[in-house]
């Protein structure tokens, strides 16, 4: 690792085109947002060029906005945890399976990406709704007297988030599992490990980079998405991205929307940075022992 830090200019020259693209497509727009966040919005609705922190102080004025931010983090963490549990198992299954249809199965995991995210999210209404599939079956079977309210709560939001993010987790874990040298497991087994012990000693720790990458990805994506809370959540389930969406698209308040975006960016950035710093892959390994 240390050697890489002293690398010459060559890698940078090779990276230049992609760095350029990232700069144009990512850094520049973010700069615009940052600049916007200092502007002033006149009561007339016009944006006035300015440099002031009114948008930020408005966010922290009372507990309303910060509480949405906290909820976003909490729900995202719940989502990460659930994706982890629900993702590791199928990823491990794919990794161990000797079927010739492995690539087909992988394709099936990615299949949801081919369908519009909105459609996929909306379809949950038909499953969880009062007249949806589950309630219909339960009621007509006589198990329930009246439909169960499964929509417009945090559970439904989580459901929507998971169906969107689970493939990312599975793929990340799967890739790191696939990278594990099979002879390591065989070595462990030959030295006296049962299959389960070999999993704990070898497979699990060596798949942690994938777990870690997948978790980070899921967290970041979850913290920035607005569709599941909007479609499947109730009034109390808004997440920060919904707020931004409402400000920018709803009331056309670009300066305030931008300020919230910057706050979200800083928060997620800090979390990612901390994560890398203190929960980096080496750290995770050490924690295992």
């Amino acid at each position, binding site marked *: 690792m240390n050697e890489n830090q002293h690398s010459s200019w060559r890698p940078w020259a090779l990276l230049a085109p992609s760095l350029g693209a990232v700069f144009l497509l990512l850094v520049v727009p973010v700069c615009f947002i940052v600049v916007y966040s200092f502007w002033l919005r006149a009561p007339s609705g016009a944006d006035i060029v300015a440099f002031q922190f009114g948008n930020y102080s408005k966010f922290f004025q009372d507990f309303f906005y910060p509480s949405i931010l906290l909820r976003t983090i909490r729900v995202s963490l719940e989502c990460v945890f659930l994706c982890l549990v629900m993702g590791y198992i199928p990823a491990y299954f794919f990794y161990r399976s000797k079927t010739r249809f492995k690539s087909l199965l992988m394709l099936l995991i990615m299949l949801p990406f081919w369908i519009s995210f909105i459609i996929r999210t909306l379809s949950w209404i038909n499953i969880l709704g009062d007249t949806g599939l589950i309630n219909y079956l339960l009621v007509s079977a006589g198990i329930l007297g009246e439909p169960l309210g499964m929509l417009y709560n945090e559970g439904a939001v989580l459901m929507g988030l998971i169906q969107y993010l689970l493939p990312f987790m599975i793929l990340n874990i799967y890739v790191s599992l696939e990278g594990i*040298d099979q*002879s*390591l497991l*065989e*070595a*462990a*087994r*030959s*030295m*006296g*490990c*049962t299959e389960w*012990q070999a999993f704990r*000693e*070898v497979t699990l*720790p*060596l798949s942690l980079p994938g777990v870690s990458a997948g978790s980070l990805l899921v967290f970041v994506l979850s913290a920035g998405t607005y569709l599941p809370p909007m479609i499947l959540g109730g009034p109390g389930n808004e997440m920060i991205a919904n707020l931004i969406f409402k400000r920018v698209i709803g009331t056309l308040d670009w300066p305030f929307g931008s300020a919230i975006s910057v706050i979200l960016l800083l928060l997620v950035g800090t979390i990612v940075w901390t994560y890398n710093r203190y929960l980096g892959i080496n750290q995770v*390994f050490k924690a*295992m*022992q």
Partner: protein
Amino acid sequence: MQNHSPDIQHRSPAPQVPQGSAPSGAVSEAAASQPKDAVGQEPAVRLKGLMKRFGKTVAVQETDLTIETGELVTLLGPSGCGKTTILRMIAGLETPTKGDIYIKGRRINDTPIHKRNLGMIFQNYALFPHKTIFENVAFGLKYRNVSREETREKVSQALEMVRLPGVEKRSPSQLSGGQQQRIALARAIVIEPDVLLMDEPLSALDEKLREEMRMEIDNIQQQLNLTTLFVTHDQREALSMSNKIVVMKDGRKQQEGTPEDVYDYPDNYFVADFLGHANFFDARVLEVLDNDQVRVRIAEGLEFTADHVGRWREGQDVHLVMRAQKINVTSPDLADEELESTELNYYPGRIYDRSYMGGETSYFVELDHGVRLHIISMVRRRPHRIGDEVVLHVPARHCGLLPREK
């Protein structure tokens, strides 16, 4: 698992008292099925009709093999001949399609891998990258309920054994390939395995390291009297290390014997061709002589006398085999006196190509009738040149005969 008493098991000299009062029932059962060996000790490993089929391909044909305690046996053969498959079946990583595996007289077909008490060495070292060297070497001990104190002691002994003391705290990635393989060796021997299984352990190393590592393994194997099964496709490794070589081809055992045996007295064309550089000629037996020699002809006027190993009759079609290293090549003027003393297998020829390799030189010589030979000879004074007229002499004991296969 058998309770193993470490030091006794390791340091005991090879010849041992017969196990008359073997404790477990399995041993006596196995002993009953092999009455001939009842006098000596149970062999460390015994394969009986072991066979493996993957789908339609038969990776290993029914194979019998015995490895005595403390022996190093090498499976040698070209790629895909089933060496790894045999090793993996012994390790428990593949299930035999047919046949039995006995370790110390106990049938272990149904013993799961982790209870077989075997040491394995892999081509790619297979050290745990997320564990320190200490944790790597101590790994097997952890699953054998060895106390902390004892573990520390055994690990440091094992590391000393492979001449890498004091690296406990490092991680595998901080060691060179050769060092990593030595750690792997330490990790395998620290559990005092019944059998050490090595699958091409040297092939990831460069030439010089390989030599060094080969001696290291040889040394440790002898010191600990470790029963070892060594898989390789490198004949030099096989010839230099083994007590016994098993040459394989297409999942079938071709020959089994000491390195000298398989090299000097190959059983068939494949073995003769696979080991070393040999010249093959289609020949016909002219005469079986009284003095245990056979006279064969490979072309009009080109007749050789071979030592009589095997059973030959006149008129039989055979292969005449001459190892490239065993043919003497001299200048005609120096050869005269030799001619008088031997008279046998002595022919003039002309060098049409050669390649100089420092210590030795390959000559390609053409005799009468366009018969061509490859000769490898130590360079003594001055190597012969292309176009030189030379005289060849092949001692009768280095002329081998093999039956011609249809």
